[in-house]
């Protein structure tokens, strides 16, 4: 048998089943990644051939005030939104896990915002709720406070989006709940006999044992938050305003790449995003050795 025939005999079926995925990873991931890396060193508008500019795109990013602003906005969004969302998710999961019953119903109620959260419909709702004549100001009015237009005030616009993100804590809560179920009940019983209170039990038993779940939720939360797009686009009408206060990184990338057709510049932005996400995840991974406990 020829070398190829032998290879096919041993591996053919595997590759047959892998074919769609292989075509996908090659044509829709690997080649585009290479192309994107190449474009990031060029000036390219899709209509004329790309011209090599070396590191120009990357260097000009750092003197682009709008880019710096988008980095700042995104970092605030990630650094505030992710921890608050996780803290909420864990807090509610611990409470629901107290064996009070009705778990299925409560879990469903808290999960619903996560289910709808990414949709245009909810972004539209948010735009009304925090608008000048919106629901929030209406409620404040009932208590005698005068509201501001939260969405068109640069100091507050971003925080309405952070609230939207925290509101969607249900998905990570579901994962926390599943993690909490795996903590052995005997541990709590012996802690009770030792006279450990709820708080002590939480910090000495619950939290250490579910650190792997915290870790997972943290990584997924960071990756997701860096890539948020729809809420900022809809709430700001695609501008990232007022005064670029909601100019998410992905929104600026979209503007550069697909409304200004600065494909090279946008590609450089995409690679920086990849590096930042990889770096952020790597930091979480690196520190995880200190705080994530895996049961032997």
């Amino acid at each position: 048998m020829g070398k190829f025939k032998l290879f096919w005999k041993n591996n053919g079926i595997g590759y047959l089943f892998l074919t769609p995925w292989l075509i996908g990873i090659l044509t829709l991931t690997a080649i585009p990644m290479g192309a994107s890396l190449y474009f990031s060193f060029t000036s390219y508008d899709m209509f004329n051939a790309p011209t090599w500019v070396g590191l120009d795109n990357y260097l000009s990013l750092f003197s682009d005030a709008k880019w710096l602003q988008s980095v700042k906005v995104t970092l605030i969004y990630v650094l505030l939104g992710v921890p608050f969302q996780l803290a909420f998710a864990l807090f509610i999961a611990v409470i629901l896990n107290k064996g009070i019953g009705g778990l299925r119903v409560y879990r469903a109620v808290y999960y619903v915002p996560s289910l709808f959260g990414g949709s245009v419909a909810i972004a539209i709702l948010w735009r009304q709720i925090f608008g000048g004549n919106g629901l929030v100001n209406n409620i404040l009015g009932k208590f005698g406070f005068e509201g501001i237009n939260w969405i068109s005030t640069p100091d507050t616009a971003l925080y309405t989006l952070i609230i939207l993100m925290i509101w969607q804590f249900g998905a990570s809560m579901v994962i926390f709940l599943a993690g909490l179920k795996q903590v052995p009940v005997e541990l709590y019983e012996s802690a009770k006999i030792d006279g450990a209170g709820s708080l002590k039990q939480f910090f000495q038993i619950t939290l250490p044992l579910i650190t792997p779940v915290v870790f997972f939720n943290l990584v997924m939360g960071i990756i997701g938050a860096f890539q948020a797009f729809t809420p900022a686009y809809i709430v700001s009408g695609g501008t990232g305003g007022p005064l670029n206060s909601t100019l998410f990184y992905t929104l600026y990338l979209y503007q550069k790449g697909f409304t200004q057709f600065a494909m090279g510049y946008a590609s450089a932005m995409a690679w920086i995003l990849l590096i930042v996400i990889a770096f952020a995840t790597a930091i979480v991974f690196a520190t995880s050795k200190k705080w994530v406990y895996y049961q032997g």
Partner: protein
Amino acid sequence: METSSKEMVKTNSRSKQKREIKKLAIHSFVIALGIVMLYPLIWMVSSSFKQPAEIFNSVSFFPSDWTLENYTQGWAGVSGYTFGLFFGNTLLIVVLAIIGNVIACSMAAYAFAKLDFKFKPIFFTLMLMTLMLPFHVTVIPQYIMFNYLDWINTYYPLILPKFFAVEGFFVFLMVQFIRGIPNELVQAAEIDGCGRIKTYWYLILPLSVPALVTTMIFTFIWTWNDFFGQLLYISDLKLYTVALGLRMFLDSAGESAWGPMFAMSTLSLIPLFGVFIFFQKYLIEGITTGGLKG
């Protein structure tokens, strides 16, 4: 709440009563927070039945003067294209995306989980890496490629990638599931004369129904909610999806038409809610699989 063992032994009605009160307090808190969480949603739904003026000055759940006007006005859509068309378009994309994901991801997962072939570990690592890859890195060349193929303003860019298992999440989910199918079963099928293809079709697929359902549900939700992809590739009004229709509506009608916008927003969430109600179990399993077994 501290209860020492001595008190536990006595177990009298007082400590039981205490526990009941504590339980009640927790229930009240959880319900109250749940209402706060759902309040915006319920308010939106109720506002979709309110007269325009009432939307702006009522925080109540119940419309004082019920109307379906918002729905008829909203359904009429934009520039002569109704939301009926947008819903139909979205459904078409969703159904084809589901078919693509189920076929391609289950094939790849079967190969990764039960078949042996050269370089498998490398490919498997690659697949895991795609889980973390932000799609922004590939989207620009993909856009250029689809533009070159003249596929802008068609559904191909939104559907075809699913037939090539680009979403590693589903491949991973199914690998985890198929690995759980006992090898003895697979071998028994082979002894009975099933080839690998027949084994996949008559054994693996039927046994993987829970994982397939999870894939279908998540594909449904993600495709239904997708905005970036649709915004990027679709500009022709008659090809508009619900998400694009809503966006367009917001831009053209502006803030003056909250009633119709809420009406269409509500309608756009109903399919998601329906899927959630009927398939909650699979949805929860899907979310936790990634988090715990990974």
